[in-house]
């Protein structure tokens, strides 16, 4: 009985079932969940063209959740008034520079450690940038970051 049982068991092991694939989906799902969590879908539709300037003394912003983006540059072709300088805060174009203060005040109230990343086109006039910075100061959003790319890229 014991011998027969042993014989049967070993035949089941070496049977023609192949490699057990039942745990394969679990492994794949683990990987899948990792990538799903780490993926940040781009939901903002940038309406202005920004070619970032190059710089050497770069810093990385690790806390992506604290960042709020401000884009300054010429408006894209499919947007009304294309070619003119446009300012976009996160996902909407700002008509009047003076509106930025109210928008930013709300953001600072939600997240006091807010970092404003300024994505400014390299040919944009710095006067416009100064106006935006004044608005940020008024709204107490003082941590800013001039987005720029590395020298080699």
């Amino acid at each position: 009985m014991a011998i027969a049982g042993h014989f049967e068991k070993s035949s089941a092991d070496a049977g023609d079932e192949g490699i057990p694939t039942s745990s394969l989906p679990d492994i794949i799902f683990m990987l899948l969940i990792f990538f799903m969590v780490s993926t940040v879908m781009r939901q903002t539709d940038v309406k202005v063209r920004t070619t970032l300037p190059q710089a050497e003394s770069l810093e990385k912003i690790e806390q992506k959740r604290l960042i709020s983006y401000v884009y300054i540059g010429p408006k894209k072709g499919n947007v009304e008034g294309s070619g003119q300088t446009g300012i976009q805060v996160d996902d909407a174009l700002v008509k009047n520079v003076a509106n930025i203060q109210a928008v930013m005040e709300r953001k600072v109230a939600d997240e006091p450690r807010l970092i404003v990343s300024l994505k400014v086109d390299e040919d944009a006039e710095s006067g416009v940038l100064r106006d935006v910075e004044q608005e940020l100061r008024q709204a107490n959003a003082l941590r800013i970051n001039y987005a720029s790319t590395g020298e080699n890229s």
Partner: protein
Amino acid sequence: MAGLLDKRDDDRVDGEIDTAGMADISFLLLIFFLITTTFETDTGIGMTLPPPLNDQQPPPVKDRNMLKILVRQDGQVMIEEKASSFSQIQRKVKTHVLNNGKSDEYSVSPDDALVSIKTDRATPYSGYIEALDEVKMGYRQIHDQRARQRGFDSYQAYKNQLEAGAEDAIREQIPLNISIAEPSGSGGGSSS
């Protein structure tokens, strides 16, 4: 109900759901997320704006403590009202900050030293960033030098070994004092 299930079990001797297809489906999803994932980190030049002024005047700065850099709209760099170039900025910043009162033209001490960057309203942003970058690089070299005196490879290495909340002595000695001045020739400015 149970009887029905029993009967089905009898029909299929293997009695297992075929999971081979599962792997294929999840592989497809995995590949989709692999492609869409970008691990890009935002890089840029960090700055802290001064808090808003409430009708009070900014503290006066002695002229010798301030290194004035002006980037004109045609791209010409002026350091202390003298024509210069972007490549000169880094050297000037270093002599200015590390002057320690030696020369009358430069700062009294690194603690008092201030670098002011001014642009015309029509100066392209790239010119402003280039000037700011050069100033930052000047400061970084000073910081690196100080870190090497303490036996570290670079300022970054020194900063990494600091415990959370610990005082950054190098930064304390040589603070990063960069001021962004209001642009000149404000034609049609709408800052409120």
